[in-house]
């Protein structure tokens, strides 16, 4: 047993090394970074973080990202819930094909869609809004949410529905007051995955925004290319992007593995 637990430990150390380096860099001064190699920051400084928290172009990047990610999770889950229910309870004409078609949208490279998306959202007047990014991310998040929720819903016995209808519940009332509370865990897991994939996707988010809804990624790219190479600032900005994900994952830690496994293929 001892020997076997070495593998996960080594793997986790490997995962943490680049993250450690990013965090260490963010506390170093620019002179120290460019001056040479040091394993720990010799002089701890919060300058990079101070810049981010006092400069609106920086901290609005985070706020914008969080707004469209939350918006996307809410939209995705809201429309995916009834659809997943339909897939788990009824047979429709062409439901298998429909399901595969939904999944194929995960296969389209974002790079393929970047330009048409830009034109589409400009045409409907949503360019540079949070809603545009939130809707665009629905492309890959809705199929995923349907997939995960359907798996959880199939675990709920059908007798629950039938009893409720016999008791005179209307469908919307049954769905919101009885059914959804029953698959709370599933909703949590689906929301987590929506949050995750919307948070990490940057190509579409960057393409669809200019000023008002600019995500943190765009601000970071600008720093990397324009002002020489402010590594400390870049590292601090990167470190801060890890935190929301880390918080969210802590809440769903007991369900993450389950979320994927329950889906059908």
């Amino acid at each position, binding site marked *: 047993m001892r020997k*076997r*637990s070495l*593998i996960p430990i080594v*793997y986790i150390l490997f*995962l*943490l*090394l*680049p*993250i450690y*380096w*990013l965090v260490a860099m963010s506390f170093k001064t620019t002179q120290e970074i*460019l001056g040479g*190699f040091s*394993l720990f920051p010799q002089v701890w400084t919060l300058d990079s973080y101070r810049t981010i928290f006092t400069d609106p172009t920086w901290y609005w990047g985070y706020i914008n990202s969080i707004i469209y990610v939350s918006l996307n999770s809410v939209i995705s889950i809201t*429309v*995916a819930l*009834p*659809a997943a229910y*339909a897939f788990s*309870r009824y*047979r*429709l004409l062409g439901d298998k094909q*429909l399901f*595969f078609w939904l999944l*194929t*949208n*995960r*296969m*389209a*490279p974002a*790079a*393929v*869609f970047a*330009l*048409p*998306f830009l034109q*589409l959202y400009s045409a409907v007047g949503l360019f540079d809004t949070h809603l545009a990014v939130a*809707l665009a991310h*629905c*492309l890959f998040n809705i199929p995923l949410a349907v997939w995960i929720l359907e798996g959880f819903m199939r675990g709920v016995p059908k007798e629950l529905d039938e009893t409720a209808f016999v008791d005179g519940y209307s469908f919307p009332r049954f769905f919101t007051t009885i059914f959804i509370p029953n698959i709370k865990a599933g909703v949590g897991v689906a929301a987590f995955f929506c949050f995750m994939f919307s*948070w*990490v*996707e*940057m*190509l579409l988010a960057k*393409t669809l925004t200019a000023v008002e809804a600019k995500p*943190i990624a765009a601000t970071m790219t600008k720093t*990397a290319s324009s002002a020489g190479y402010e590594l400390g600032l870049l*590292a601090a*900005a990167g470190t801060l992007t*890890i935190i929301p994900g*880390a918080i969210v*994952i802590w809440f769903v830690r*007991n369900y*993450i*593995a*389950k979320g*994927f*496994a329950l889906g059908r*293929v």
Partner: protein
Amino acid sequence: MRKVNQKAWFLVLPVLFLVAFNALIPMMTVVNYSVQETFGNNLFLWHGLGWFQDIMRSERFHAALGRQALFTFLILIIEVPLGIIIALSMPRQGFWVPVCLVLMALPMLIPWNVVGAMWNIFTLPDIGLAGYFLNHTLGIDYDMTQDPIAAWITIIVMDVWHWTSLVVLLCYAGLVSIPDPYYQAAKIDGASPWAVFRYIQLPKMKQVLTIAILLRFMDSFNVYTEPFVLTGGGPGNSTTLLSIDLVKISLGQFDLGPAGAMSLIYFAITLLVSWLFYTLMTRNDRN
């Protein structure tokens, strides 16, 4: 049995509407581009299948596709076995399980451009942790921006770092669903660890492994942001994967026709391989 109920279509409608809006309209735009020639000023001319013929014959496309295929191949043969091994050796219960899961899932929650930037900082020859260690402690001449082999190793290691956890999480989920009596029966029969793996664990993991391989295939075949931020496609063209080349053509040079044709071929390849794999894996289930 599930009931047949065509009214349930109404429940699916919102999803259909949103996904179709996001998928069909842009897809039609791409199809439109791919059969037309443009000289700017919104002037478009019918070009038939010309772009497709050009692309199919283009050396540049073949090279980029080859690199993309090689990348995906390497990713799959490294990440899938590695993920299985790690999942097998993880603790099944107790305090360390959530700790392991959270730490392992961490890389997947980092925005992709940050992953690229992070690995850039990590591998800088003189001031990055890995770069310094390789160059000054081990004495290996390592510079990702100069040496194509080093660049390739770096993007592969980065992807392994980023996504192996997905395979681990999925396999782990499959493993914990195996009831204890299976193992007890194997013990009574005196089964070797290999036999336990081959006849109990592997079959139980098959479904989640299918998902894992499918997701890893789709995502690594479409990977763009991380290698682009890390290497920018260089040195030279050595790490210009198909997706990177596509963005160069469409957003960089604004050659909409060739880019559209290339997107469609690209999408068709992804779809075909995924479908073949999906059909093969699920066909065996029925027998």
